[in-house]
């Protein structure tokens, strides 16, 4: 996907003005977030499990080479294939070559954010392969020609009416259908597609190094369809989605699923240990795992950003984020929105272009509070902010006026006399323009404040003056 991360402010403005999206986004808090909170309270030793989950990820990422090597050896031993892709172009090329070599006409896809990085469905369609998204949310946005809006609920911004209208245009059905009726329609259409698919492309929720297994977590059943019917199954994963042992899975599944939707477990958890065995009744004959970098090495190489790779892609941080809820998923301009997106999207797709993303946060910390593996997103945002200001030339992107502004701020704050004087000057200069001690209009950059808020003028008698007066017997 080509980044449009520099459009954040514009995108945010448009989304804020869209009443349908603002209403739809409420579900993120009232649904997902609230359910996650309940699940957390109802789970024994929830905090301890999250601590242990983080410890597993920390250990794994710190030894990523070791576990990737183990994973590939085991998959090879199971009869599967592994391709290491430096970037999305390399991954796409491998998959398209494979499709050509296997005479593939129809590909079914289940949810994979990495495949969004690759714009894989689009690339396939461009060479004449029918590529169908089978996750209902992905299917809807594929119909709409849009990027996903949320990590686990791609069409969350669409209202029921909007979806009904899209389906109506596609199938001629009544544009006033209910979610149940729309689901039935989609089930019918996609059932037909499943049966004739030659190849599937899925994501990977967890890859288990010790056994060469991959695990898919779904509710819909399309993941199972994708790993049961076509002759060739390709799984695409970010290089970080690995856990050392099968025994680690119990806990990882627990913290992932409860953080994502609040469910104790999703309807389906599927573990694939290579292609089908000879005596099996059905299943893919070929298994391919494509392991993708595409910018993740940058996160890995920076000790302060490394924990972004612990992410389980549960979406809990999005659901807790008051900024995401207002600006929506498209404002972030690349595959990953929300708090984790504000870190990984600019780092992976270009920090200079995406420089607004780390700043588009009030640092409230709600994301860190809900993260199943306790990723300290606010800290990473602060680190990225420093890079945008003080980093190497290819990352810096701060205007000269702002730089001068902070130098002036430093000057004023290094010495209390200057600080005190600064306040007095501001008071006197501002006083003629203020009404009852408040400004309602100020020039830029403070116009950003006064657009919607009044701003008080600095006090004529600041605290330090009042305190001095008290000490000298001025009384309370």
């Amino acid at each position, binding site marked *: 996907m080509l980044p449009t991360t520099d459009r954040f402010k514009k995108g945010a403005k448009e989304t*804020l003005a869209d009443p349908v999206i603002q209403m739809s986004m409420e579900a993120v808090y009232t649904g997902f977030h609230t359910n996650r909170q309940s699940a957390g309270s109802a789970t024994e030793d929830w905090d301890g499990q999250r601590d242990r989950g983080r410890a597993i990820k920390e250990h794994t990422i710190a030894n990523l080479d070791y576990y990737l090597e183990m994973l590939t050896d085991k998959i090879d031993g199971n009869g599967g294939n592994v391709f290491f892709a430096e970037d999305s172009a390399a991954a796409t090329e491998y998959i398209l070559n494979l499709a050509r070599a296997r005479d593939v006409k129809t590909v079914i896809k289940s949810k994979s954010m990495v495949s969004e990085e690759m714009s894989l469905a689009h690339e396939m369609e461009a060479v004449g392969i029918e590529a169908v998204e089978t996750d209902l949310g992905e299917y809807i946005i594929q119909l709409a020609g849009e990027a996903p809006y949320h990590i686990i609920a791609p069409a969350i911004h669409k209202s029921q009416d909007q979806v009904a209208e899209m389906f109506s245009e596609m199938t001629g059905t009544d544009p006033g259908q209910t979610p149940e009726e729309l689901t039935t329609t989609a089930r019918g259409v996609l059932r037909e597609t499943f049966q004739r698919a030659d190849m599937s492309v899925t994501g990977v929720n967890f890859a288990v190094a010790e056994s060469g297994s991959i695990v898919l977590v779904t509710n819909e059943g399309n993941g199972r369809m994708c790993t049961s019917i076509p002759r060739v199954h390709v799984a695409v994963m970010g290089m970080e989605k690995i856990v050392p042992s099968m025994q680690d899975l119990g806990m990882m599944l627990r913290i992932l699923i409860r953080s994502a939707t609040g469910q104790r477990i999703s309807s389906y958890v599927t573990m694939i240990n290579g292609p089908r065995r000879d005596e099996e009744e059905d299943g893919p004959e070929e298994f391919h795992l494509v392991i993708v970098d595409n910018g993740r090495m940058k996160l890995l190489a920076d000790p302060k950003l490394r924990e972004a790779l612990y992410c389980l892609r549960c979406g809990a941080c999005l659901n807790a984020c008051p900024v995401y809820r207002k600006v929506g998923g498209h404002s972030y301009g690349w595959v990953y929105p929300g708090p984790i997106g504000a870190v990984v999207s600019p780092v992976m797709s270009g920090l200079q272009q995406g420089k607004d993303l780390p700043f588009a946060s009030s640092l409230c910390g709600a994301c860190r509070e809900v993260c199943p593996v306790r990723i300290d997103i606010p800290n990473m945002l602060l680190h990225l902010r420093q890079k945008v200001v003080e980093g190497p030339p290819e990352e810096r992107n701060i205007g000269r006026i702002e730089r001068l502004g902070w130098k002036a701020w*430093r000057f004023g704050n290094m010495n209390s006399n200057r600080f005190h004087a600064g306040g007095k000057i501001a008071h006197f200069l501002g006083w003629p323009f203020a009404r009852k001690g408040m400004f309602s209009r100020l020039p830029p950059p403070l116009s950003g*404040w006064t657009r919607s808020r009044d701003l008080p003028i600095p006090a004529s008698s600041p605290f330090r003056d009042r*305190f001095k007066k008290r000490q000298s017997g001025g009384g309370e």
Partner: protein
Amino acid sequence: MTVQPTKTPRPERVQLFVTCLVDQFRPEVGESVVNVLERLHIEVDFPEGQTCCGQPAFNSGFRDEASDVARHFLDVFDATEGPIIVPSGSCGAMVRNFYEEMFEDDPAEMERVRRVGERIYEFTEFLVDVLGQDDLVAEMGAQLEANATYHQCCHLERELGVDHQPQQLLGQVKGLEMLPMYRPEVCCGFGGTFAVKFSDVSTAMLDEKLDNAAATGASMIVAGDTGCIMHMAGGLRRRGSNQQVRHIAEILDEATCPTNHAAEGRA
């Protein structure tokens, strides 16, 4: 750093880190802190050299500038002794949590950071955890006939972990009816320079917060951070609302004031 406020014998004297926003924009909050502490027979010193903790620059990515101002802060406060009281979650968190981040490559400075950081207590945290008396404020005869709703300031709650002390103190004030707000833990949208740089988003978050506050019917919002207070108050004024926004120190001051006169606080 993790500071574990533990109950200690009541100190005779504390240092006040009043914060730049309180000093310049809401000095009455500072006065209220002093009043309450003095009523508890604790003397308050105000190290005059103090300016700002450096947070605005740090949060904007200007760590060079921020660390200079932070060094000045350490100069001022390292020359003092005893608990340092701050009526702000975000400024307290800056010194306690983020100074370590800024000076991690400077072992000599880290010594000072630790020495000073260990002495920092947010105002309500000090009253509840350090003075350690469950009915501290009630014993002072705290009384205020009013209703209010409490907003959970993000840094206070999530960076310093001060998640029950303000509510506990407010609960001791006789006659004060606390009306719960919907989504009290959701950010008001201030976020420092975020409020200016991303004013559209900040305003949308503010509108949601003020709508939720208005829905309680409370005459005032009580909070623990002055930046948030200015942001909410500024928005209320723009709406033409009568609802006030007060710092918890002001409430405790008014409630325990011997003459108990009506507040002339600003909206």
